[in-house]
């Protein structure tokens, strides 16, 4: 078994309103930062898992995302294993 470090980024699905992102986008020009678009706020989760291969680690984290780390009704996720 090897230990793999991984990062999971969870974002609201495209099309789901993201009021936090919108609020930040509205606030930035007031501070002089013009031309900022597409702000989206999500969750960044770091974890390390034991697995026999990178593929297995990836698959296990994928399953964790489906079951717990993300809510598939409103969220999408992205797994990076290193």
């Amino acid at each position, binding site marked *: 078994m090897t230990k793999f470090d991984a990062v999971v980024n969870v974002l609201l699905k495209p099309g*789901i309103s993201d*009021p936090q992102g919108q609020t930040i986008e509205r606030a930035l020009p007031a501070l002089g930062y013009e031309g900022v678009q597409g702000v989206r706020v999500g969750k960044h989760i770091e974890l390390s898992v034991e697995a026999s291969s990178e593929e297995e680690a990836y698959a296990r984290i994928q399953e964790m995302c489906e079951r*717990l*780390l993300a809510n598939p*009704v*409103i969220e999408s996720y992205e797994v990076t294993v290193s």
Partner: protein
Amino acid sequence: MNPRVGVVVFPGSNCDLDAQKAFRDLGADVVSVWHDEETLPEVDVVVLPGGFAHGDYLRTGAIARFSPIMDAVRSFADAGGLLIGICNGFQILCEAGLLPGALRKNAGLKFLCKWVDLRVENASTPFTNAASPGDVLRIPINHFEGNWYAEPDVLDELKANDQIVLRYVDNPNGSLDDVAGICNPERNVFGLMPHPERACEALLGSTDGAVILRSILASSPSLVSAP
């Protein structure tokens, strides 16, 4: 025989005592059920109360749905038992897939504790049959994540099946189609963001919540089957 109500307590639940008191004041026998149990006691109604189960960490209801008691709760509902999720309980029911959709952060990005008016859209559920369609109930909300969302086809199906039970008269949180409470197609699982247990005494501002609690108790098998 008095209707028997089981109130599930998750670590971080905090409206369990209020729910117990409100049901007890209306004549129910109430028992508290710790989330770590694997079986439910003999009850007619199961309540998932409000609060911050597991601190609402990660997502509201996300961790609570995996509590040991939830398998028993699911079986209870599958067998036709009356199951109500209030606020955090509604969030848990959605996370568990017992009700459709998900609860997002309020559109105003603020926690909201205030009185709201709710319109009864479906008065033929066991949770609302003491009301009439179109009745307006004054009941408080108390949440940060009460902004209900579902895919368009899911919403269409809910509408077609009359599963939208309560709507906000003046939408406080951005909830899709003003949804405040929904039920499953079988009408025995009900989730709502407002807190009916907080509106059962004139001294506290309203007795409209008792309409919902009384509907539930009147529909409970112990009472219905009594001679």
